[in-house]
């Protein structure tokens, strides 16, 4: 059974005809062609498929595409602005918080949502906030440091990134 789907991804409107059982992840990757969002466990455990739905982090592998009908989705491709990386992305590079990179889009978006809600998280709050994102290269120390660095960068120039 196919149904019409109207969805805004990174600010672009998409009008698609999508089977009811397609997940948001499948639509983002296979219909829209944005492959920055990764398919990991398919069960909401690993966080590689994290996107922001109306600003909130969600597992796109567990979200039926039609549940996002009429809503705003932000994927990793939509985070930089005019070729300038978002402070969270910049911080991940600066701290070397990326190894194979598979978990990175999910980590970055989860970290962004965390900092949007709580601009000054403690180390424990960062660990708790990233509980749903697994890194199989064992890089958590640098990832936590990157979130702390992003916290400082956003403090300096957060206003430039307001509303992103």
């Amino acid at each position, binding site marked *: *059974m196919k*149904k019409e789907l109207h969805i805004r991804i990174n600010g672009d409107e998409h009008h698609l005809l999508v*089977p*009811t*059982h397609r*997940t948001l992840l499948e639509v983002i990757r296979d219909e829209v062609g944005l492959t920055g969002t990764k398919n990991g466990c*398919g*069960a*909401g*455990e690993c*966080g590689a498929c*994290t996107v922001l*739905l109306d600003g*909130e*982090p*969600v*597992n796109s592998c*567990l*979200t*039926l595409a*039609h*549940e996002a*009908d009429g809503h705003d989705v932000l994927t990793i491709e939509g985070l930089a602005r005019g070729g300038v990386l978002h402070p969270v992305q910049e911080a991940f590079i600066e701290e070397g918080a990326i190894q194979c990179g598979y978990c990175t889009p999910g980590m970055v978006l*989860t970290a962004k*949502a*965390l900092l949007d*809600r709580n601009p000054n998280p403690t180390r424990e709050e960062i660990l708790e*906030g990233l*509980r*749903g*994102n697994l890194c199989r290269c064992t890089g958590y120390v640098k990832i936590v440091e990157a979130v702390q660095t992003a916290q400082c960068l956003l403090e300096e120039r957060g206003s430039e990134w307001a509303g992103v």
Partner: protein
Amino acid sequence: MQTFDYLRPTSLEEACAALAGCNGGGRALAGGTDLVVQMRQAGLRPTLLVSLRDIPGLAFVELGDDLTLTIGAATPLASIEHSPEVRKHYPAIAEAASFIGSAQVRSRATIGGNLCNAAPSADTAPILLAYGARATVTDGSAERTMPLEEFFTGPGETVLRPGELLKSIGVPTCPTGIGKYFKTFRSAMDCCTVGVAAWVDFEPGTAVVKDARVALGAVAPTPVRSRTCERLLVGETLDEALVECAGAAAIEDAQPISDVRASASYRLTLVSVLCRRALEAARVWAEKGAVE
């Protein structure tokens, strides 16, 4: 995943009628964080999903003037976790919500979903039982309200009949007293091994227990109250000796199974440890209150 019909009604009447009319093949879809996993990995094949997304008045947190708390069944756990009202007046409920899954799961997963799945280990259940919460169920026209304890009828089973939905959870006024929830788990993202919640109200300015509710998760077919423990507490002074006794008594109302997460005997030990922790927190709270 197999395909299915998908409806997104805008009223409870429509939703209940659709669920009642599909020979038991329909499922209500709230956050989908359990349902979609069951469909992808456990062979669950509903013929119809009825999305609750567009039904107004199902996702809300409302604190009454008398501090009663009402939570709509489709309220995401993240909204409960971050609600200033819940954090201020019912911090243990906010904390229990925050224990579940990850930030991504809590953005979508709802309190109603957590309760309707009726896992004995549901993290929101023990603290709601301890606060004396009531469940309101609707068939689209008539409603019935019952103690949450009676909502659960077995593992994965509730009183909901085909075409009925959980509408809201109500917590009666708890202007005094303290609620606490403790649980153990093997690691982040895992189900709880045992959860114990306690709510204790004291005679003003004293450590004498006026009323108490103790609830246990993951140690019986449903989340349960420990009335043995409660009877022991009411009317007595909550001192260290009573905390110890009450912790031991809570075991009487637990019938745990052994499974991949823990053996039955280990779970019994945990019931008594976690019950002591919850009551000790209440004891310290009363001591401070009595001193001030």
